[in-house]
């Protein structure tokens, strides 16, 4: 049979920073973009001296889907499902950070119950995110049992959040000026049950991993970054804290209900992979502690502000009275009218500072929505943690950075 080759050449989508080695014995190896051990769709072009990594060139953007461009042609409310898909492991935190940016611009003060619920769900999401990161990192090192313990708990949490929001991963639960709906009956009781199970299984993971010789050999003194480098490269969140600096937006510039909570900010001592693993484990414990405080102090009252220019009316009113129908129609078709101006809101996401910079020209559709995605900024300095270590160390180091393609590439 006659097989004819296509008459075009596919250009290389990336231009590597280097294509010759500095030494005759060195080789250039291309890792990714779709490699089972890269924690996300990312390409690493590495120069190797035997098994040692000499220098690396990181290429991201394989999941770029024009998020910011798309935002400029939808109403403010319609963006909530999109922001869910940035960091899809902790989508609720994206929701709340985006809503807070719009609320800052529109000068909306959310209700006490909404503030507490958003805090509670942010911490819940943080546990889910850290569980995913730690579990995947351990699995990549061959720790299958610990992986299964962690994702089992994570699945209880997914199911539980689905009871509240109706979805397992991308929730669309935040609303400008409030939340989509209040807690269902018995939700908090089940939450306490899951937290107890979490504690039991996390104890087993500590027992399996913390003093495991193989684990320590792979993690300790690997992927080290100094505080000065971390700050220079814009690192925030777990990676900055792993270098020993207690910088956490929840403590330093409290937002939502964090000012009322008692919690610790765990820090590392060396800035290596083991510190990042341990900080995530400790932060989950702190989140559990915070959630318990929030359950005890959860105020009663409405979950959304009483502001018909932003909040969607109750569904049964839309069907029964003309004012609510018009209200609903105007909010859906024209979008909430956000005053002209710009605002930046930052939340402490599980990866670091997640910022939304929004610009409005005074209408229902944003002029610009820009995301300061921690994963993207972290990719800019990742060569500092890969260069000089073994090729096999790329796997745990990259896992401990927790690069999320959705928010990195947008």
């Amino acid at each position: 049979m006659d097989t004819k080759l296509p008459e075009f050449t596919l250009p290389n989508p990336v231009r590597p920073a280097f294509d010759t080695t500095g030494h005759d014995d060195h080789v250039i190896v291309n890792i990714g973009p779709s490699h089972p051990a890269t924690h996300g769709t990312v390409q690493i072009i590495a120069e190797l001296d035997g098994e040692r990594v000499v220098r690396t060139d990181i290429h991201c953007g394989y999941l770029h889907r024009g998020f910011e461009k798309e935002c400029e042609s939808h109403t403010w409310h319609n963006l909530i499902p999109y922001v869910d898909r940035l960091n899809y492991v902790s989508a609720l935190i994206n929701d709340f950070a985006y809503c807070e940016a719009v609320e800052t611009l529109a000068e909306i003060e959310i209700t006490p119950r909404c503030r507490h619920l958003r805090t509670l769900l942010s911490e819940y999401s943080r546990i889910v995110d850290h569980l995913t990161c730690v579990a995947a990192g351990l699995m990549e090192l061959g720790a299958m049992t610990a992986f299964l313990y962690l994702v089992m708990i994570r699945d209880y949490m997914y199911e539980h959040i689905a009871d509240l929001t109706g979805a397992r991963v991308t929730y669309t639960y935040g609303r400008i000026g409030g939340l989509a709906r209040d807690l269902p009956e018995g939700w908090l009781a089940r939450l306490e049950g899951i937290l107890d199970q979490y504690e039991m299984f996390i104890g087993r993971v500590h027992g399996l991993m913390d003093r495991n010789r193989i684990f320590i050999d792979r993690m300790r003194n690997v992927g080290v970054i100094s505080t000065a480098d971390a700050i220079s490269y814009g690192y925030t969140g777990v990676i900055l804290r792993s270098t020993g600096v207690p910088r956490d937006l929840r403590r330093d510039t409290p937002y939502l209900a964090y000012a009322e909570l008692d919690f610790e900010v765990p820090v590392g001592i060396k800035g290596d992979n083991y510190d990042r693993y341990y900080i995530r484990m400790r932060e989950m414990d702190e989140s559990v502690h915070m959630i318990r405080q929030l359950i005890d102090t959860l105020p009663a009252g409405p979950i959304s502000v009483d502001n018909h220019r932003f909040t969607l009316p109750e569904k049964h009113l839309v069907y029964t009275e003309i004012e609510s129908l018009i209200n609903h129609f105007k909010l859906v078709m024209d979008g909430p009218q956000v005053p002209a101006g710009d605002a930046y809101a930052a939340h402490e996401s599980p990866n670091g500072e997640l910022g939304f910079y929004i610009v409005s020209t005074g209408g229902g559709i944003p002029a610009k929505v820009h995301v300061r995605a921690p994963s993207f900024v972290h990719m800019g300095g990742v060569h500092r943690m890969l260069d000089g270590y073994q090729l096999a160390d790329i796997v745990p180091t990259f896992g401990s950075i927790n690069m999320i393609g959705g928010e990195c590439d947008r």
Partner: protein
Amino acid sequence: MGAVLGPLQLRLAPPDYEVTLVHGMPVVRLPSERLLDTVRLLKDEFQFDLFLDVTAVDWLPRQPRFEVVYHFYSTSHFGRIRLKTTVPDADPTVDSLVPLYGSAGFMERECHDMYGIGFRGNADLRPILLYEGFVGHPLRKDYPKLQEQPLVPYRK
């Protein structure tokens, strides 16, 4: 957050600078040629050691067309600041912050990708979220959302 506002207003005086407080965040408007000096001053005297973000806003058809927006944070006094400078359509170039912050390298590449802003002093402005050979800058307001640039010809 507004605690640095008073000292900033004293240090960055008109007519070159305009310092205001917008939704609780100090905002400094400045001419683009003063950018590098000002950022160095903010880093050395006001401890803004974390360069968070750079992006641009396309104000088509207004002139000057582009506004380049910077966000900084201080890990010692936890203040935030936003810097805004404008560049014209004909020469959308500002000084790069690579000499001061490591994080500038990647973030400026993204801004160059999306808006075509040039960063003088950043030697590595290769495409980062887009690919090699992409024509145009997609976040510019005159770039149609539905424009396609297929790398592989469509099947007939």
